[in-house]
């Protein structure tokens, strides 16, 4: 059952991210729902599921992007794993703390991705960070925090936690 839910999530993320989200983009920037989904799965289901679902999301979304496969696998899988690990260390999670965490993670992965544009000079990289990476990180934080708030309002959300 869980596998089916994850499969539907991964398959539906593609049309959502590539077809619908461009209409909701602000100044040409849209949130990375793959990253948000990987983080939420990691947070609620633990490191292993976060990693595996993150890898699946990274791979499938990369089929519909001009970006590098390894980068997509590393960032999405890594975020799922990190969210699972950090989520256990936090005793009380709020939508604001999750949003801030996602903002930070998205910023770090975005900067890492920009640094891999080998033909870019420093000015171009800085411009890309200012115009794309930072707004997207804010967007990811807001969307992730909002989704967590919605989920925690509607359902009795169970989160894994270290003793």
């Amino acid at each position, binding site marked *: 059952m869980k596998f089916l839910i994850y499969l539907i999530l991964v*398959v539906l993320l*593609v*049309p*959502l*991210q*590539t*077809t*619908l989200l*461009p*209409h909701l983009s602000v100044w*040409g*920037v*849209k949130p*990375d729902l*793959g990253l948000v989904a990987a983080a939420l799965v990691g947070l609620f289901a*633990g*490191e*292993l599921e*976060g*990693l*595996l679902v993150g*890898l699946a999301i990274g791979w*499938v*979304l*990369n*089929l*519909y*992007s*001009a*970006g590098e*496969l*390894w980068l997509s*696998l*590393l960032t999405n*899988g*890594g975020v799922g*794993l990190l969210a*699972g*690990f950090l989520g256990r260390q936090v005793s*009380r*999670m709020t939508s604001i703390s999750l949003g801030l965490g996602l903002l930070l993670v998205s910023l770090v992965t*975005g900067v890492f*991705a920009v640094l891999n*544009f080998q*033909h*870019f000079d420093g000015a*171009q990289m800085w411009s*890309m960070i200012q*115009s*794309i990476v930072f707004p*997207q990180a804010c967007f990811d934080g807001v969307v992730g925090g909002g989704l967590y708030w919605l989920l*925690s309002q509607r359902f*009795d*959300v*169970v*989160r*894994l*936690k*270290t*003793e």
Partner: protein
Amino acid sequence: MAHSRSPYGARRLAFACFALLLVVLFLIPSQIKGLLQYLDGPVGYLVRIPLEAIASVDAGIADRWEQYVALQGVREENQQLRKEIEWLRGQHSQLREAVTATERLTALLQFKEQALPTMVAAQVIGRDATNRYHAIILNKGESDGIKPDMGVVTPAGVVGRVVKTTAASSVVLLVTDPSNAIAGLIQRTRDEGVVEGTQQGLAQMKYIPLLSTVRDGDRVVTSGLVGDFPRGLVIGTITRIDKQEGALFQSAELMPEVDIGRVEEVLVIQTSYGQFTKGGAGADLLGKPSP
């Protein structure tokens, strides 16, 4: 809300998997890519179903919007288009004369007839999944004969080139992406250069010779020397020249001919490089005269 569970086994396994992934990705990246390519086909077909369904709903809504809601300013646009038709009619008759002369001269010089490229039509069903690339997704892929590096155009001009394919879809890197490079030719001066995208969603032509008399309004077309584009496809119009003191070349900013944000259907050029006529013999494909 929160509960405890012994996490150490799963955690160790997750970290071990991630470490293994890191090692494998850095040591044998091409093998991993090859392995995953076997799965690309079935996954591509599976994802195609919701993707095309949502894309068609999206296109339907956009169509309704354009037909009923976004009709403001149509009267002015109509008048403008009528004027343009008048101007084009004049150009058309001049061009017919030029075509007759060209045919006569071509026969005289016994040039080979230029092979028209084979093209496949495709629909745009999405945009790049990330924000870092200017790319579009097409509803045709390897099963329709589309391969990486093929050129993509509309009747107006160059759109970009295919960079990635699955069985049922393909990703096209747009001419406005900074990672894209197309060999260009200034139609009036015949100077060659490289056209790259900019982060502002425009394009720039680099490596124009310093002695070139290029000016604003000059049209840039594909040179046909590198890549899978035939000669003479319109890329854009020069809007600004950048000539820096001490530089070996000058560069120019281009306004792409195709409205990249609104492109809905495209043509993928399937004829491989080398089948087009090279050199100055061929006429410009899809080329339009400068106003």
